[in-house]
């Protein structure tokens, strides 16, 4: 008896204009797994994330989460089921402060995101919780700063902090290290290690150090299909992977 | 009986074409400027109204409709150029809210100025001699003037199509719509191209303003009426799409032309029915692409 996967994709196809970006792709991820998703540009990684989180609908195929068909659910319903994501291109509430950003995520998680029966300032536990999350992400000194005035690296951390505040069961990180320096990336790995403890992870990342540090299995995509799948060591040794993705010159 | 039906069809068809022609002349400039610059000019139909009034003054001074048709549109375009230079340019990059506010203010000012000069009452302009009569086709009595409106619209649209499709200037305009960054490479200034397109759009609306006068008169509310209709054309046609505007103007004309023959009581509702119908089938408009 094998555990039912947390997330299962069956025969997903999706095209944009000219040709298919995903072509009958199937993928299954068990609870607690940490899956890295790699592949050359245009392999369909971001499209895949958008299909899992509900930004896009597939042309054909089904998306199952905990055995539940979520193919046609809008993003907010999937978020409420426990799917949280970060963004390759930063997507924050720029006019609000760091604290207000985190508070927004917390209010939604606690199911009081749109109530009129509470005063915002009376929600002490939410303030305390947002402070803890900010501290974890190293953002405590910036709690009152307007987000669009923050340096890029801190905005990246806030992106992760918002996912943390959601307490998702399935965390999907879309290039969390994009645009970060080597030092910032090392700090980020530490942060991610801390927050994904106990979660299931899907990680799309170009920086292979981050992928190797955080994933226990890696799926390689190429032209909208699964090229191969295995442990980091297996994938690293796979000649096909080295050819299409890592590039022979790096070997 | 079938003769009667045939004559109704002919009459309806002519009405449809006349209405579509005017709707397209008025709305095309609005939608193209919106598509290219993202600039929504609420005062666009105020210039259309202004042209009607200026045409009226020229015609009543000189006694010549033709002189009015010849002179009123360039005068209107010159006023439009002044507005573009003095006001609009400052806000091309400012986002749509200040643009809407500014052009709402301008529409207010134009409406009030026309009332100050020409009064609150509806003014009538006689069709030029020779175009005032009727012809009978398939048993339908048709105003010659309507045929004239259709011909002049066809001529203008044809000329414009030639200009855009076949001349170097047209090529630059097309480039400005699709690849703005290419315009520099072709040796033109993008802002000059934008001004040109804006003025051509105003010219078409101004012609409509003069041509319209012998049919419906000139009245203070005509800018608002035309604005509602033009917005319907832009929304239903889709994101600044000229073909979209063409098709929707045609649809509006059809419904209006035949609808007024058979269901004249409800004619005022037809444009909304067209809008709702189009948006039901294509929420982003007929030729709408992505975005919101």
């Amino acid at each position, binding site marked *: 008896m094998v555990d039912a996967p947390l997330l299962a994709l069956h025969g997903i196809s999706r095209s944009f204009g000219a040709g298919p970006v995903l072509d009958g792709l199937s993928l299954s991820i068990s609870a607690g797994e940490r899956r890295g998703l790699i592949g050359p540009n245009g392999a369909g990684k971001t499209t895949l994330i958008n299909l899992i989180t509900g930004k896009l609908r597939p042309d054909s195929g089904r998306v199952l989460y905990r055995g539940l068909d979520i193919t046609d659910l809008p993003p907010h319903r999937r978020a409420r089921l426990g799917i949280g994501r970060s963004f390759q291109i930063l997507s924050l509430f720029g006019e609000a402060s760091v604290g207000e950003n985190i508070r927004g995520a917390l209010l939604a998680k606690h199911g009081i995101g749109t109530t009129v029966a509470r005063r915002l300032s009376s929600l002490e536990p939410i303030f305390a919780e947002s402070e803890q999350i900010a501290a974890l992400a190293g953002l405590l000194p910036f709690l009152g700063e307007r987000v669009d005035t923050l340096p890029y690296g801190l905005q990246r951390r806030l992106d992760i902090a918002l996912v943390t505040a959601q307490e998702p069961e399935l965390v999907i990180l879309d290039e969390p290290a994009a645009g970060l320096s080597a030092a910032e990336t090392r700090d980020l790995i530490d942060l991610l290690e801390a927050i994904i403890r106990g979660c299931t992870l899907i990680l799309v990342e170009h920086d292979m150090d981050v992928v190797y540090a955080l994933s226990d299995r890696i799926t390689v995509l190429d032209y909208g299909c699964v090229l191969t799948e295995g442990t980091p060591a297996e994938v690293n040794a796979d000649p096909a992977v080295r050819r299409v993705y890592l590039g022979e010159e790096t070997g | 009986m079938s003769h009667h039906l045939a004559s109704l069809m002919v009459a309806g068809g002519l009405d449809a074409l006349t209405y579509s022609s005017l709707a397209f002349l008025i709305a095309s400039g609005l939608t193209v400027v919106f598509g290219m610059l993202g600039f929504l000019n609420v005062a666009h139909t105020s210039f259309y109204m202004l042209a009607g009034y200026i045409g009226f003054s020229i015609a009543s001074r000189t006694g010549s409709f033709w002189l009015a048709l010849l002179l009123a549109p360039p005068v209107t375009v010159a006023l439009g150029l002044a507005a573009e230079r003095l006001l609009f340019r400052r806000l091309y990059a400012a986002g749509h809210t200040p643009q809407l506010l500014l052009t709402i*203010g301008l529409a207010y000012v134009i409406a009030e100025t026309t009332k100050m000069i020409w009064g609150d009452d509806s003014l009538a302009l006689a069709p030029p001699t020779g175009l005032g009569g009727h012809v009978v086709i398939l048993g339908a009595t048709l105003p010659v003037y309507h045929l004239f409106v259709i011909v002049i619209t066809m001529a203008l649209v044809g000329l414009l199509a030639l200009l855009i499709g076949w001349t170097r200037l047209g090529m630059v305009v097309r480039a400005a719509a699709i690849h703005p960054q290419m315009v520099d490479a072709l040796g033109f200034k993008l802002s000059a191209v934008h001004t040109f397109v804006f003025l051509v759009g105003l010219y078409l609306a101004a012609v409509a303003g003069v041509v319209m006068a012998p049919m419906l008169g000139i009245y203070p509310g005509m800018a608002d009426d035309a604005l509602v209709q033009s917005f319907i054309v832009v929304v239903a046609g889709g994101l600044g799409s000229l073909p979209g505007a063409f098709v929707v103007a045609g649809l509006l004309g059809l419904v209006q032309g035949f609808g007024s023959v058979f269901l004249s009581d*409800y004619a005022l509702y037809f444009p909304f029915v067209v809008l709702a119908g189009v948006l039901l089938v294509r929420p982003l408009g007929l030729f709408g692409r992505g975005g919101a």
Partner: protein
Amino acid sequence: MTIPGRLGPALSVLKAERGRRDLGGALATLALLAAVAAAPWLVPVAALNDLGQAVLLGLFAIGFNIVFKYSGLLSFGHAAFFGVAAYAEALLLRAFPAVPVPLLILGAAAGAGLLGLLLGHVCVRRTGAYFSMTTLAVGAFLYTIAFKWHAVTGGTDGLDEFMPAALVLLPGWRLTNPSITEIYELSAAFLIPFTLATWLILEHTPFGNAVQLVRQNEERAAFLGYDTHRVKLTNYGLAAFVAGIAGALWAISNGFVSTDSIDLTLSTTVIIMAFIGGTAWFWGPLLGSAIYIFGSDRLSAVTQHWQLWMGLAFIALVLAFPRGIAGLASLLASRLVRPRDG
């Protein structure tokens, strides 16, 4: 990982900062509402009629600004809700003269609110200029109904003679031939609690917070679990309801309803009022409508073409102070409070 103490230092700084800002806003709000309430004692009766109009149009402009300020959507057809409620109020008064007027006002406004929820399904799916154009078309459609449906709306003649000889405020409390002052007090009695409640909802509850998050970044809000369409729709319905209260009171205070209360001119006038006062402050539009009404009153004494000057002044305002009078005032206030920051 847990921070000792209930609040860490950074957060208390943040809260104090916010608190000071909130206090300033709350004081200005109280002063404005106190002025509205005390007007009958402060203003000569001759000016009270104008003030009554200003207050009602100001309430309407606040309704408009609920969509603009909080959802970032510029409605070009908000007179639809004002007008529908005005017609509804006239018809309700005619049909149920014995029912307490507050109930009828709430009924008419609720009708406008429901209409907002219905039409919002189409409108709030669009953003930017498309939202403006769509709301204009919807507004024009409702205007056309008012214009054409003579049997119900009186067409171009409008509706009159719907005011009962005595307005029933509560069972046993009637106003016979209400005076201008009494009508004004009725308007203020609705304006103050309803705007205050709306202000609290939008500025101080999670719902208002959600509306503002959705305006800033709809996509991220959705991925955090917010039903963004519903948030925008609810806010639109709230804005329609507030405009509806203004419209219903308008019918009562004028004793007459015509297509003037639902036409495009009114929809643009309310935009102008809101921006004159400043849309960044919840109460700015109320200020703007007072400036508009009294300004046009002064202007029309001097020139017949006051709208021309109003239009020119508005253009100058848009170019010079895009944030309106309230924006200018808050700028000046911040200069005064912190002159060193220059």
